[in-house]
């Protein structure tokens, strides 16, 4: 039986549409749900975890409706809001959650220790939650999501506000969970965040699943997507003239005397030529930065290429 599937699901709040005719099934591995804020990510997740009911269609977890209590047994949810029963310690919180899942006191204690060890919080779990750092709070949230050993783990923006070191550790943790045969759904508003993490990407925008596939497939789809690049150098004019001669460069904008904004396609080829030009001309580039394309921009691009296939 499939773990989780959306069957022509739409959801609206009053006149506002949150999700528009989405059909998908979540496959084993790590799935990244990518979309900007307001694209429908949280609606999808709330439907999946049974906090909302679809207006049209059905969400099924192991064949049962997601809204029903029995479906929730299979899902562990790590919410995006940073809220706990603040007066408790981390350990007490996880135990409480275990008991709310129906474990007896003794089993709940075992389970709590087990998951605390999994997230690496065993020795720090007795401090009150209010004194935790963002990363530690994130781990406790993760621990409570694992406490009933669910098949599907849903993580809503788990890397938001976590420092780089914390990110690395959490990423490692997700991989360990994957190795133990869990299915994981991670949402994020940055495609780059999924780079090192997801096997499969669901690209969501304006309430619709725009693209799904492996990261490579998505990247390939986006390879031709024009990039915006910022270059700062003291010899901007000279460099601009040289770069204009490249056929990968579609536009150059001179921003002040020492900054260039480039629009390029076929990025790989461009970077190779750029290094070449810089070395040959002896120009010192103080900054070379790809300006992150917003998911909105990618959406527009994908819509465009869907409407006018080349």
């Amino acid at each position: 039986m499939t773990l989780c599937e959306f069957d022509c699901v739409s959801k609206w709040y009053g006149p506002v549409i949150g999700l528009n005719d989405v059909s998908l099934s979540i496959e084993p591995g790590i799935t990244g749900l990518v979309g900007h804020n307001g694209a429908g990510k949280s609606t999808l997740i709330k439907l999946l975890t049974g906090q909302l009911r679809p207006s049209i269609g059905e969400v099924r977890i192991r064949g049962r409706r997601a809204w029903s209590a029995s479906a929730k047994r299979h899902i562990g949810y790590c919410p995006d809001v940073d809220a706990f029963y603040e007066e408790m310690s981390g350990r007490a919180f996880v135990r409480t959650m275990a008991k709310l899942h129906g474990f007896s006191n003794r089993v709940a204690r075992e389970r709590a220790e087990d998951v605390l060890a999994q997230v690496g919080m065993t020795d720090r779990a007795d401090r009150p939650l209010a004194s935790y750092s963002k990363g530690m709070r994130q781990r406790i949230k993760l621990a409570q999501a694992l406490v009933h050993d669910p098949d599907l783990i849903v993580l809503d923006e788990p890397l938001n506000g976590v420092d780089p070191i914390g990110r690395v550790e959490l990423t490692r943790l997700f991989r360990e969970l994957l190795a133990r045969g869990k299915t994981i759904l991670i949402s994020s508003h940055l495609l780059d965040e999924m780079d090192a993490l997801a096997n499969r990407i669901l690209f969501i925008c304006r309430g619709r699943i725009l693209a799904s596939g492996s990261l490579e497939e998505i990247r390939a789809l986006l390879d031709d997507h024009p990039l915006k690049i910022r270059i700062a150098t003291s010899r901007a004019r000279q460099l601009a003239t040289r770069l204009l001669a490249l056929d990968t460069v579609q536009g150059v904008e001179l921003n002040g005397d020492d900054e260039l904004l480039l629009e390029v396609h076929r990025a790989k080829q461009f970077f190779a030529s750029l290094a070449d030009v810089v070395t040959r001309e002896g120009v010192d580039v103080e900054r070379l930065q790809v300006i992150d394309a917003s998911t909105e921009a990618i959406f527009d691009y994908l819509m465009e290429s869907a409407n006018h296939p080349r």
Partner: protein
Amino acid sequence: MSTTITSRITGPLSACLHLFGLSLRRLFRSRQTMICALLLGLASIAVVAWSMRRERSPEEFIEEIFLAVYVSFLLPIFCLSYGTAGIASDREEQTLVYLLVSPLPRPLIFLAKCSASLLLALAWTMAGMSVVCWLGGLPGMEALHVLWPAILWSTVTYLMLFMLFSVMFRRATMIALAYALFIETLIGNMPGIAKRLAVSFYTRCLIFDAGSAFGVSPSGPGGAELFVALPGPTAQAILYLLGGGLFLGGLLIFSVREYSD
């Protein structure tokens, strides 16, 4: 491994019991408890002052203390303190999501929360009543014997009403405050049968019915004619129905409601 862990789940009943205990603890340790204690303290001082003077009859006790201070103010505030906190405070602190995604059926969640609030509210109203009556001396104790059922059922009804607020509104406490302090008083003092829309009307009906042996009756200009009391059993039946209806309403709304914030 998955199956072994899942098989150790004992079922929704123990989870429900645990939620009940958890809610009870959290509610008891909240600020509301302090406010209730403070109010009861203030009232007690007044009652002590009242009872120091010459001998009093139970009738005077009921009219001057019980109705004026306890029924019109302390009772709704006690119920409000725990009733609205039931679900609205979880929602305010954004912790409701943990309950909503847990494999507990929603009606059971409501039931557990509701019984925790009810237990605490009943403890406060009953203890508060006992304290007030005890401090009122002999007339107070006499009154206590006949009055407690009226207060018990009023507490249940009030609490169910405030639980309903709690399920429906995010700012349940403010709405309930405005209701208890203003709308109840306003409606309760209207002429005709309009006052039957207020919970406190039935409480007073029950008190007048039970206290008739002491000669308690609606006072003030117009008195009984203006009050249009219902007979005790009718009032009691209405309170049962009202309490039950409000409970079912809260249960139903909580079961189908989507908390998307």
